[in-house]
């Protein structure tokens, strides 16, 4: 059983390989769940039919997909007569779990954990490689300092983010295989929404500290006024749903305008 679970775990990374607009992650789901389904269905035809059922529409957050796979396996295993054909409740269960976990994943992982891990790695990397009060103070183009910063960013972000990602994939699969649909109780017990709210607050504190450190490095008062204006202006532009692309070119335009006011690199 452990081998089948390991196989499903590794295959789950291919969930989005054949992502399509019609049925989204269906092929990836069937491919990843195959080792588990093979343990339920002994004949090739029945196994093939079970895989065919998994080729219907499916979409969820990729890190929660293993939980749905585990639940489907547990339900298929518990059927009295697996050869009796389709069980319509399985499709409904799969769809509803996919939708719910998709919403949780988008909020907790994409909307909170990813920005937090990025801000944490960015700020730690910059502070370690370019310490403001350190002696000597390396400049931005110091090759050694840049290499140290790059390592911190890459290792820090991937380490922090993927520790949660991999744990969720593997532990979720284990729990779903053991508990079946009751795995939702386990997910509930993680208090993900509460953790997300706290993480966002912590990320906000980190980001404000990073902004203050960054602003304090420039001594020109003219430039500082412009920087604060850009910070607030970007927040307002984001509220108006302007994209990062528009903001990028607007900032370049502002920088061009600043040269007419004789504001230069200090």
């Amino acid at each position, binding site marked *: 059983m452990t081998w089948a679970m390991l196989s499903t775990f590794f295959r789950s990374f291919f969930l*989005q390989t054949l992502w399509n607009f*019609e049925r989204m992650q269906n092929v990836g789901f069937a491919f990843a769940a195959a080792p588990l389904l093979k343990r339920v269905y002994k004949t090739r035809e029945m196994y093939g039919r079970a895989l065919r059922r998994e080729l219907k529409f499916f979409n969820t957050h990729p890190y929660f997909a293993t939980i749905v796979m585990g639940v489907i396996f547990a339900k298929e295993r518990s059927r009295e007569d697996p050869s009796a054909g389709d069980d319509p409740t399985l499709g409904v269960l799969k769809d509803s779990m996919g939708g719910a976990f998709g919403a949780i994943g988008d909020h907790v992982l994409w909307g909170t954990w990813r920005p937090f891990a990025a801000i944490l790695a960015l700020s730690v990397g910059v502070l370690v490689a370019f310490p403001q009060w350190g002696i000597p103070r390396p400049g931005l183009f110091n090759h050694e300092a840049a290499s140290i910063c*790059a390592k911190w960013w890459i290792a820090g972000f991937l380490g922090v983010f993927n520790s949660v990602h991999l744990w969720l994939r593997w532990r979720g699969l284990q729990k779903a295989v053991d508990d079946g649909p009751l795995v939702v109780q386990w997910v509930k017990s993680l208090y993900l929404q509460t953790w997300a709210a706290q993480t966002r607050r912590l990320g906000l504190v980190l980001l404000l500290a990073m902004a203050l450190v960054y602003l304090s490095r420039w001594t020109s008062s003219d430039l500082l006024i412009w920087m604060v204006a850009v910070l607030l202006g970007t927040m307002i532009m984001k509220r108006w749903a302007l994209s990062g692309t528009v903001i990028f070119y607007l900032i370049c335009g502002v920088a061009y305008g600043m040269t007419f006011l004789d504001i230069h690199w200090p």
Partner: protein
Amino acid sequence: MHRVLYAAACSGLIALDFTGWGPWMVSQPMVCGPILATLMGQPVVGLIIGGIAQLLWLDMTAIGVGIPYDATAVTLLGVYWGTLPPHSALSQIILAFFMAVPFGFIFRWVDIGARRLNSVVVHRLDHVSDARLPAALPLVIFGALLWTLARFTLTYIVAMYAGQTFWNRMAYIPKLTRFDQALTIAVILLPVAGMGVALELLLSEEPESRFNRFRRFKPKEGVGDS
């Protein structure tokens, strides 16, 4: 030419992260930028472009049927062009970034086309018999993986080469002009703008609602009902 092939092959592998095998988040700008820049010998270019792109497009990710703007492509192309001069000046780095930004849309369109093609493969799979399905699934998955790698590498070769040709013809050298000064000041302002984007995202109670803005495609009616 060797440089283009090497950078495009690395970029193709990095681009597999979200569409092929993962996502491990290697395709995030703050990760892929420094990786490619280190491989090209100038890590500072990756720090500047990757760091700014990460913050500026922090509220961008693929959810549901939405295919977002490709910030990974912007970072990789910007880093490649930014590392073309042996010792890039700040204004050269931002100019490379400036040139790369529209390519995020082009890569997005290519991705949308590729995913439409995936639907055709899925339809073909419907015609495979149940007995052959267990063998067909790994074949289509690994075929799709190779195809994704090939299309990304090819797109990067074309984009990098076109930009490199333009860059070489332009032979941009920093001078004490207003344009050059503006590009240099933009290096100071862009991280601040990125922090503004991140602040707004973290202040939001529903950060995922930002991602929905990029939804353009809806599944056909009835699809998804099982």
